[in-house]
């Protein structure tokens, strides 16, 4: 008996097909809490003050009105880029060029502000820079999409390289336009987004109100677009199975190009918001990695625009809080935010494993649980001969198995 036990695999990992939404969120939430705890412990190493971490986090994000508005503005931009990426990623188009698509939007806005200046009315200038930015973003999205659609060119690296092309275009523009050679384009006084004010609220920081409203509208629009529209449906089909898409007569190339045009356009829009609404200038690090962070934000929310509200908020909260922490405790330079978001992401990514898989420990006492793993019979469907049992009651059976399993656990 002992010998046999020794030889049996210690545990067995199987795919989990059924997990309630509540369970999923419990796992994710606990991973998030764990991540924050680990971050705070790491911060404590540098600050020697455990409570200080949370205090700085809180005060850095919600301490003053300006900070709150800053948080909202950063959230809006990050969310906007994440929204832009969502349709592309749903289509399984690995667009990691959001950084460049946004930056090129920023660049065109800045060019408009720099050359047109006050020669025309502000709304007109805004309109021109809007059209230009969105158009530039679309172009940046279109180029890789065209080659992907036509020759199946690897989009991951293509879009990545496009980021750097955009970056050097920015430095090119600056060194071309700023003849002093300082390499810095100063504050541009024209072409700002109009200020909205909520009456009765302190005016501090409300310059970002319009940005926030525009992005909020975009969230809803994108949710509706993906969830209910025909385009959204086509995107899902292409993402899940190109063959099936072809089979039902979807023009896959058209969908790829159309979706990337949309994706690029929204990125360009984000760039426009960033320049005309908050920064009023451009430099090559203006987007500051948000293009990459947005990928993670969108992925973690499973491409659900409403879920992204939460993930984007958490990321911005951590980053801004961390930079406050750095100022409060004077620890090194301002890269601590990246460390903390990195750790946070690792935890959240890792927790997906526990959502998708079940670990069965092969112990005698829980034999019943172990043997009733809910491996699905139809998984062998791509292998026609696979003798995976095709009994009709398989489904019902596995449902019961889960119930039984929960009881055992």
């Amino acid at each position, binding site marked *: 008996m002992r010998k046999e036990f020794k030889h049996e695999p210690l545990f067995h990992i199987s795919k989990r097909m059924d997990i309630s939404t509540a369970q999923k969120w419990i796992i994710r939430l606990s991973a998030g809490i764990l991540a924050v705890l680990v971050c705070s412990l790491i911060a404590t190493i540098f600050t020697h003050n455990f409570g200080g971490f949370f205090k700085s986090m809180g005060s850095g994000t919600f301490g003053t009105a300006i900070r709150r508005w800053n948080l909202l503005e950063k959230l809006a931009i990050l969310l906007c880029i994440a929204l832009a990426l969502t349709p592309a990623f749903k289509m399984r188009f690995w667009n990691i060029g959001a950084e460049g698509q946004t930056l090129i939007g920023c660049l065109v806005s800045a060019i408009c502000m720099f050359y047109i200046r006050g020669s025309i009315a502000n709304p007109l200038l805004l309109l021109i820079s809007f059209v230009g930015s969105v158009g530039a973003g679309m172009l940046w999205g279109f180029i890789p999409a065209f080659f992907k659609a036509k020759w199946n060119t690897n989009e991951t690296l293509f879009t990545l390289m496009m980021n750097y092309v955009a970056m050097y275009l920015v430095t090119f523009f600056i060194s071309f336009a700023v003849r002093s050679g300082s390499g810095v384009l100063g504050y541009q006084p024209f072409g700002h987004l109009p200020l909205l004010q909520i009456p009765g609220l302190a005016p501090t920081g409300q310059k970002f109100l319009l940005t926030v409203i525009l992005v909020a509208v975009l969230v809803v629009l994108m949710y509706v677009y993906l969830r209910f*529209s025909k385009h959204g*449906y086509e995107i899902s089909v292409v993402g899940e199975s190109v*063959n099936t898409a072809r089979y039902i007569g979807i023009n896959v190339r058209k969908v790829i190009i159309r979706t990337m045009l949309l994706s690029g356009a929204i990125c360009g829009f984000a760039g426009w918001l960033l320049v005309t609404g908050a920064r009023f200038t451009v430099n090559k690090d203006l987007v500051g990695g948000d293009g990459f962070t947005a990928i993670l934000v969108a992925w973690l929310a499973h491409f659900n625009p409403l879920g992204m509200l939460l993930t984007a908020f958490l990321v911005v909260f951590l980053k801004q809080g961390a930079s406050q922490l750095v100022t409060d405790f004077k620890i090194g330079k301002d890269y601590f935010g990246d460390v903390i978001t990195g750790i946070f992401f690792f935890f959240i990514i890792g927790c997906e494993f526990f959502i998708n898989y079940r670990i069965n420990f092969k112990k005698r006492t829980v034999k019943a649980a172990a043997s009733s793993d809910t491996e699905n019979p139809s998984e062998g469907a791509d292998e026609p*001969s696979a003798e995976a*049992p095709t009994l009709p009651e398989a489904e019902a059976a596995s449902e019961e198995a889960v119930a039984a399993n929960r009881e055992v656990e």
Partner: protein
Amino acid sequence: MDKPIAIELKHITKTFGAKVVANKDVTMDLRKGEILSILGENGSGKTTLMNMLAGIYYPDEGKIFVNGEEATIKNPKDAFRYKIGMIHQHFKLVDVFTAADNVILGEKMPEYSVRKEYSRLQKKYSEQFREIRSQEKDYIEKGGKRFSKEHDDLIRKEARIVTRAAIHMGSLGWIKLWKHAKFNHLSRYRVQTLQKIVDTYGFELDLSKKIYEMSVSEKQTVEIIKVLYRGADVLILDEPTAVLTPQEIKKLFDVLRKMRENGKSIVIITHKLNEVMEISDRVAVLRKGEHIATVLTSETNEKQLTEMMVGKKVDLNIDRKDPVDPKPRLFISHMTVLNKDGRRAVDDVSFTINGGEILGIAGISGNGQKELLEGIAGLQKVQNGEVIFHNPKKDKPVTFYHKSLKKIKAMAEEGFFHYPNGEKVDLKGKKKKEIVRLVNEEQILFYEDEIINLKHKSPREIQQLGIKLSFVPEDRLNMGLVGNMSIVDNMALRSYRKGRSIFVNKKKPKSLADKVIQELEVVTPSDMTPVRRLSGGNVQKVLVGREISSSPKVLMAAYPVRGLDINSSYLIYNLLNRQKEKNVAVVFVGEDLDVLLALSDRILVLSGGKVAGIVDARSVTKEEVGLMMTKKQEETEKEETENA
């Protein structure tokens, strides 16, 4: 029965989920130097059982004995250790490697234990050292001088041994690494060893050919050589003949017999009775995961085996009605479709598909069936030839809106028009006024046949032309359905474009889904369940249900019952028959000749991408069809060799 037992399975049980029992309390044995067939229907647990021997699954209960000793086979590696090798139906080969590379892949490195080597060297060097030491002692005892030249030499020798030992023993780790990383893994020696195996069993294979350049049977050969090279004594072949031509099957069987002579034990998983009778010494029959019996082939017959396999006598009487008024619906003429590698998968094929009948397509799988159907459906580029859709419509009156008077006259002369009573229209000598009157009174009629060439039309364009062409592809979850979407969403695939709204209307797909679930008895928790989570038969029901819901004019189904249990299969047959009665042109690609003969009205036999013949399914015999599937191939092969 006097042969010694190689492998024994005792009370093996394997379940997937709580109630799905793949194998239940199976006890059987395999002897040395025999060929054992494992016979069973689809889903009877044959492959699962053998996968437990190959280390792919681990049994829930029961024990496996190899050569009388209890064995624990957790993974394929363990299986190798017990000299068990399995040739899967889906070849596990690396496409970009050569045959030889694939064979030696994962080969166990020669054992090299640093510790053992260390003690061996320690022994060796200390012996040498002791010897010199004793020489030195002797020398001193004999009164030799201490710092003389001879003495120095001895001392130097001692030192040399010590250094050598130190260097050698110190570098054992590196030696081990070197042995592992050995260059030239395909030294001449190895190719020779491989070539020897190739020659011994009479394989025909170029060992330096890349896998992606190989035919299916060559790939299978590589798999078999791989297993033999590992020194397997037990070979398990999973449906080895499914993808082979008769000649290749013959060659394979010759090889298997030679292996048996060499004392190997061979297990063949199959559901083809004639092959069982031809090759095996004993037959083990499985039914619904249970071992029914193991019998000597010489003492049984096909009928008895069938009874054991299916439990009760199967009545293959599919209710086939005579086609009512079959009219040509699709003309395929000189159609050529290239496959991925640029070879002609469908080669100059011409035939007609009639409405109201079932056209069966027979052939060994991979002889162009897939490309033929996809070519018609617009999913593959048709290189040559035409695909013409023909939809006869009722008599239509001629109008001046469409044609000028002059044209009407000219066409009348060619005999295109007729009167309501069927008489041919002759406008010769008639005055213009009268013709105008006839036309305005809609007295001149013609057959407006819808004749559309589908060549170079995409599926979307075909749809837009209003041609209702339904297609049930063979790989359901890869093409046709979206695994991660719910049944409702999958129903929407065909119809989501309808309507001007930019939003997808989910109401109709939902009611369709519920209808299909109810009428076809789809077993599912709800209509929002992702299709991937359904079992094979239910997936197929969803797909077929959707495809026939659009009341198609042409319905093409590729292997629609593959992987389905008998009940579901019959349900599908009935559905196809009902479509035929609705005057639909049904194309049925099948692999089971009995079914093809019982279900189809006509049978088109494909061989090597060419039409080997079109026969009447009611009068033709199974043997005749079988002959056509193979005969043509020989001819084409002959041609190829001549060309080469």
